[in-house]
C-alpha cells in the first residue's frame, strides 16, 4: 500500500490509486472561488444594483438633504462623515449575505455534497467561500464608493488602513455568514440574524454619528458593539478620524477572525448540518 501511495500523479491514470496533494487543494480552492465569482457576476442585478440604489438614497436623503442641516461632525461635513460608514455597511451586509445565501443554497439544493464527497479539506471549502464573499463585499464597496463620488470629493488619508480594514471586516462577516448558513435549516433562518442582529448593530455602530455625541453611559455601551471598531477604523483610513484606537480596532477584528474561523472549521469538520 505504501509503495502505491507514493509518486502517483494526481487523478491522471485511470484505475491508479490517486492521492490528494497541495495542488488538489489549490485547484479546489480556485474552483470554489471561480464558481462564487461567476455566480455573483451572473446575478449582478441582485448583488450589485440594490446596494447601489439603496446607498444613493442614503446619500441623497441623509447626506444631502438632512446632512446640510446637521452641519459638521468630527470636523467634516456630514456627507463626508457618513461615506466611510455607508461603504462599510455595504461591505458587512454583502459579505455576510454572500456566504449565508450561497452556502445555505448549496445545502438546501444538496449540491454541497459535490464538495463533501471530494477530497477537499474543510479549510479549503471555507477559504473558497470566504474569498467569494470578500470579493462581493469589496466589489459592492467599490460600487458604493463610486456612487459616493457623485456627492463628495473623497480623499483617502491612510490607504493601507483602508484596504486592510475593509478586507478584515469582509472576512469576519463572511465567516459569520458561514456559521449562520451551517445552522440554518430553512430560508427563514438565514434572514433572522441579518434582520435582528446585524442591521441594528450596524446602525448603532457609528455609521451615521460619532459616539462622542452620546451620553457617557451609551458611549460605553457602544464600545461593546464590534461593528463600531470596524466602521471607525475604516473612517480613520479614509478621513483620518476615529472614535476608537486603531490598535484596539485591529485587535478586536483579529479576535473575531480567529474565533469565527475556528468555530467554522470545527462545525464543518464535525459536519454539523451537513453530514447525518
Amino acid at each position: 500500500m505504501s509503495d502505491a501511495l507514493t509518486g502517483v500523479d494526481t487523478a491522471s491514470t485511470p484505475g491508479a490509486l490517486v492521492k490528494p496533494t497541495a495542488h488538489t487543494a489549490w485547484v479546489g480552492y480556485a474552483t470554489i472561488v471561480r464558481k462564487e465569482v461567476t455566480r455573483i457576476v451572473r446575478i449582478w442585478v441582485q448583488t450589485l444594483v440594490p446596494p447601489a440604489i439603496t446607498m444613493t438614497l442614503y446619500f441623497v436623503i441623509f447626506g444631502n438633504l438632512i446632512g446640510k442641516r446637521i452641519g459638521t461632525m468630527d470636523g467634516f461635513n456630514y456627507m463626508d462623515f457618513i461615506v466611510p460608514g455607508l461603504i462599510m455597511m455595504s461591505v458587512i451586509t454583502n459579505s455576510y449575505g454572500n456566504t449565508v445565501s450561497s452556502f445555505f443554497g448549496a445545502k438546501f439544493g444538496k449540491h454541497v455534497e459535490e464538495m463533501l464527497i471530494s477530497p477537499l479539506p474543510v479549510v479549503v471549502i471555507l477559504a473558497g467561500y470566504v474569498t467569494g464573499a470578500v470579493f462581493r463585499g469589496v466589489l459592492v464597496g467599490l460600487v458604493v464608493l463610486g456612487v459616493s463620488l457623485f456627492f463628495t470629493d473623497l480623499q483617502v488619508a491612510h490607504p493601507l488602513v483602508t484596504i486592510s480594514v475593509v478586507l478584515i471586516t469582509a472576512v469576519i462577516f463572511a465567516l459569520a455568514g458561514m456559521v449562520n448558513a451551517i445552522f440554518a435549516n430553512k430560508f427563514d433562518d438565514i434572514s433572522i440574524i441579518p434582520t435582528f442582529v446585524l442591521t441594528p448593530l450596524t446602525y448603532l455602530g457609528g455609521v451615521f454619528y460619532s459616539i462622542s455625541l452620546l451620553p457617557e453611559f451609551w458611549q460605553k455601551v457602544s464600545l461593546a458593539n464590534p461593528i463600531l471598531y470596524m466602521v471607525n477604523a475604516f473612517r480613520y483610513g479614509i478621513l483620518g478620524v476615529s472614535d476608537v484606537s486603531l490598535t484596539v480596532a485591529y485587535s478586536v477584528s483579529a479576535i473575531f477572525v480567529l474565533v469565527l474561523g475556528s468555530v467554522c472549521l470545527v462545525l464543518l469538520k464535525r459536519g454539523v448540518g451537513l453530514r447525518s
Partner: protein
Amino acid sequence: MLALNVKNLEKTYENGTRALDGVSLTVEEGDFFALLGPNGAGKSTLIGIISSLVNPTAGDAEVFGISVERQRALAMCQLGLVPQEMNFNWFERPLDIVVNQAGYYGIPRAKAYDRAEELLGKLQLWEKRSVISRTLSGGMKRRLMIARAMIHQPRLLILDEPTAGVDIEIRRAMWEFIREINEQGTTVILTTHYLEEAEELCRNIAIIDHGEIVENTSVRELLTRLDIETFVMDVDKELDGPPQIEGYASRLRDPNSFEIEVPKNRALNRVFEHLDKQGVRVLSMRNKTNRLEELFMRLVEKPNE
C-alpha cells in the same frame, strides 16, 4: 484486492432510527455488484457512510484498503457517487457542473474540459452542455450525474438508482455506458429497483433488509436457488380451463393465456407435449416476473404480510 470492505457498520440516527445493524460486506476490485433492498432497508445510509456523507455509529468502511473515517480525503479520491436525489445546482450549465467537480479533485481546468467533452459526448449530453441544467429531461439529469461522478476517473463507482424514471431506450444506453466503464476496470456498485437491471448487469449481489445483509452471493448462484419459475403462455385456441398436468400448477389468465409453475427439477417439454396432444399451439411464452424479483420477494418477505 477488495474495492470495498465494510466492517460491522452500525448507524443509529438522532431520532433513534436504527438504519444499519452490524453490516459487513466485501466487493472485489473490478466487480459489478448489486446492492438491493426494499425502501428503508438501509441502502442509502450504507452508501452515505461509504461516501462520507453519513457518520457511522460504529464500524468502518474501507475503499481499496483506505479507511473512509481515518483517511477520508484519500478514500474519496478513489470513489465516484451517483446519488439517488438530483443534487446538482439547477441554475448552472452541465459543462460547468462537470468541470467544477473535476476541480474539487485537483484536476486542472484544461484537462477537465477535455474529459468533460469526452464524458458528455459519450452520454449524449454534449449538445446540451450550455443550457441551464434545470431544463434537462429526467434522463439527461441522471446522465449528467454519471458524467460528474466519472470526471475524476474513480476506481469505485457507486450508482444509487441511476435509471429511476428513465425510459427504456435511455436506460439501455446507460447500461452500455456503465458496462463499458466496468470492463475498463472500474468497480461498480449498483442499487436499483429494476431487478432485471441487476440480473442483466451484475455478477454479485447483496440484499439488505432492516439494516442487515440477508444475502450476499453471486447472481448466478442466487438464481439457482429459484426452485419454481412461473411462465405465462399465450395460445392460439380458447381454453375451457388451465391445462391439467401432473406436477405443474397452472391457472387460466384469460381464454387465450395461462400461467404455469415449472419446478426446477422438471422440464418444459412435458407442457408442450401435453398442449400438442390437445392440438393447442403456443404462440409466445415469457416469465411472469423477473427471476431475481421472485427470489428478492421471498428473501425480504415479511412473515406477517
